[in-house]
C-alpha cells in the first residue's frame, strides 16, 4: 500500500531533479543578481537603473509592438493554412510539410537570410536596380527607415515561426470529429457560421496553446532582431544581452531577464484566464 502511494513521486523524481538543477538554480541565481549587490545587500538599485535607462522604454515599446503585430498575424495565417489543409485536398500532406519546413531553421539564420534580402547590396536592391526602379541602393536597414527595419523583423518572424502555430492548429482541427462538422452542415450552418460557432470554439484549447507558446517566444525575441536591426530596434531580451556582454553588468541584465519572465507569466495567466475551457464543455 505504502509503495503504491509513493510510486508516483518516485516516478517524477528525475523531472524534479532536472528542474531544480537547470531551472530553479539559475532562476534563483538571477533573482539574486537582480536584487543583491556584489556584497550581498538587498537593493532595488538595479531595477531603478533599468527603468531610468534611456533605451528601456524604447525596448519595452518595441517588444510589445512586435509581439502584438506578429502573434495575431501568425495566428490568422496559420489558421487559414490549417483550414485549407484540413479540407484534405490532393497534395495537402505535402503542402503541410512544406509549410512546416521553416520549423527547422534557427532564428538567427532566419534573420540573416532576411538580411541578405534587405541589406544595402542585398537581393531586393539588386532586383530593383536591374528593373530600373532605383539608381543606387536603398538603405532599408537604417535609422532613417525604422519602419522598414520593423517590417523586415515582422516578416522574418512571420516566415520562421508561423509553422509551429500551423502544426498545433492542424493537429487541433484533426481532433474535431467529422460528425460535428457534418451535423452543422445538415442543421443549416453556412461555412462561416460553421467556422465561428463550431470550429473555433472546439479549436480553443489548441488556439490557447499556440497563443501562449508564440507570445512567450515573441516577447523573448532576440536573434532575429539582432541580425536584422543590430541596435536600431531595441527589445527587452536584446537589452539583457547587451548589459551582460557589452556593458558587463550582469545585475541589470538579470533585472531585464526577470522583467521578461514576469511579463511572460502574466500573459500566460491572461490567456488561461480568458480562453478558459470549462471542464463540462470538453468533448
Amino acid at each position, binding site marked *: 500500500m505504502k509503495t503504491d502511494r509513493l510510486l508516483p513521486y518516485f516516478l517524477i523524481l528525475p523531472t524534479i531533479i532536472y528542474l531544480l538543477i537547470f531551472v530553479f538554480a539559475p532562476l534563483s541565481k538571477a533573482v539574486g543578481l537582480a536584487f543583491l549587490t556584489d556584497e550581498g545587500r538587498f537593493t532595488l538599485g538595479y531595477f531603478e537603473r533599468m527603468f531610468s535607462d534611456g533605451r528601456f522604454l524604447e525596448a519595452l515599446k518595441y517588444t510589445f509592438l512586435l509581439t502584438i503585430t506578429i502573434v495575431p498575424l501568425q495566428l490568422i495565417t496559420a489558421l487559414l493554412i490549417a483550414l485549407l489543409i484540413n479540407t484534405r485536398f490532393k497534395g495537402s500532406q505535402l503542402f503541410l510539410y512544406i509549410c512546416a519546413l521553416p520549423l527547422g531553421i534557427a532564428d538567427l539564420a532566419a534573420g540573416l537570410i532576411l538580411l541578405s534580402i534587405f541589406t544595402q547590396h542585398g537581393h531586393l536592391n539588386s532586383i530593383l536596380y536591374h528593373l530600373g526602379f532605383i539608381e543606387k541602393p536603398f538603405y532599408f536597414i537604417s535609422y532613417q527607415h525604422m519602419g522598414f527595419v520593423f517590417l523586415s523583423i515582422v516578416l522574418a518572424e512571420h516566415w520562421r515561426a508561423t509553422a509551429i502555430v500551423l502544426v498545433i492548429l492542424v493537429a487541433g482541427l484533426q481532433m474535431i470529429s467529422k460528425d460535428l462538422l457534418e451535423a452543422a452542415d445538415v442543421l443549416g*450552418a453556412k461555412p462561416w457560421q460553421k467556422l465561428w460557432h463550431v470550429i473555433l470554439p472546439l479549436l480553443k484549447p489548441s488556439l490557447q496553446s499556440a497563443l501562449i507558446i508564440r507570445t512567450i517566444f515573441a516577447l523573448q525575441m532576440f536573434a532575429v532582431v539582432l541580425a536584422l536591426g543590430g541596435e536600431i530596434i531595441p527589445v527587452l531580451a536584446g537589452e539583457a544581452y547587451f548589459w551582460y556582454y557589452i556593458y558587463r553588468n550582469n545585475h541589470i541584465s538579470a533585472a531585464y531577464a526577470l522583467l521578461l519572465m514576469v511579463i511572460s507569466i502574466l500573459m500566460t495567466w491572461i490567456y488561461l484566464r480568458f480562453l478558459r475551457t470549462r471542464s463540462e464543455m470538453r468533448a
Partner: protein
Amino acid sequence: MAAEIRLEGVTKSFGGIIAVKEMNLTVNKGEFLVLLGPSGCGKTTVLRCIAGLERVDKGRIYISGRDVTDFPPAKRAISMVFQSYAVFPHMTVAQNIGFGLRMRHIPKMEIERAVKEVAELLKIDDLLNRYPAQLSGGQRQRVAVARAIVTRPAVLLMDEPLSNLDALLRLRMRAELKRLHHEIGTTIIYVTHDQIEALSLGDRIAVMLNGEIVQVNTPTQIYDRPADRFVGGFIGTPPMNFLKATVAADGLMIRGFPITVPEEWGKGLKGMIGKVVLLGIRAENIMVHPEPKKGELTAEVIVSEPMGSQQLLTLQVGDDVLKVTTRPDLRIQPKQVIGLSLTKDKIRLFDKETGKALMFD
C-alpha cells in the same frame, strides 16, 4: 410540411468501388421508410447522398418535386440524426437544440419557445442547461433528435440512431421514435442493419444488398413474401428456413415425402416437374409432431432451446438444417425423430440457382 423524396438512378462510388448502383426509390409524404441491409450494402451512402453530405456521381434526387441534387445540405430542408449523436460538446442542451434555428437567424424568443416545446416532446426539458458531457448516452440521443426536429424539416434522416444504446434503452427509444413520427408527421428515412428495428418502425422497408435495393415493401410483406433468398435469410429471428424440394406432378417432394402447396400454384409448377427448387418456410409455420404420422416428413432433433415464451428447435432434414419454434411445454429430446407439417399458405419457393422467388400469382 412533410415531403416526398424521389431518387432517380442514383449512383455513387468511392475510388472505383460502387457503393450505390442506379438506385430508384420513392419515399411517400409522411412515410417512415427504413433502409435495411448488412454493413457495406450502401444504405448509409444513400442517406448521405440525400442529406447532401456526398455528391452523387449520376442520377437525380428530388425533395418535394424540387431537384436538390446540386444543393448543399443547408438548402435541402432536411435534418439528420447521426449514429454518434454529434451533439456539440461546447454548447448546452438548449443551445444544441436551438442551433439550427440560430443559423437561420430566427428571433431569440421564438427559438426559446421552440426549444422548450421539442424538449418537452422528448422529455429532456429538465436538462436544458446541462452540457453534453453531463448526459447519459440515451439523453444525448434525445438531444440529437430534438435538435434535428426543431427546425421542422420536411425530411428527417436517421443513421443508425439507436445502435450505440444498450438493449433495454434501444427498445424504449424505438417506441418513442414511432410515437414521435405520429406526432410530427415528418417523412423519415431511417438506416439500420437491425431487422427487428426495421420491422417494428417502418411503414415500408427497403432491403439493400451490394448497393442495390432488393425489395421495397411493408414489413409484413417483406417478412411473409421475401423477394429472394437473401431477404428471407436476413429478416426474421430465426431466419427463414430453406429446404431442397423436387417439383412433382401433384406438388412438391422433400426426401420422398409429399408436401402440399397452394392449389393455384399447380399451373405454374407443371412446367417445372423434376426440377429442384428451394422451399422457404419460417420457423413458426412448421408444425411439429412428436409421433410422426405415416407419410409425413420427418426430422431429427439436434438441439432444443427453451426461450421463455417459446421453444426453439434445431432439426436436421437430410443435409438441410431447420429452425422451428414450438410451444414451450412440448417435451422433445435430442436425437428424437419427429414429424413435420408445413403451413401451405406460408410456403415460398425460390430458384435454386438465382435465389429469386418463384411467383405463381
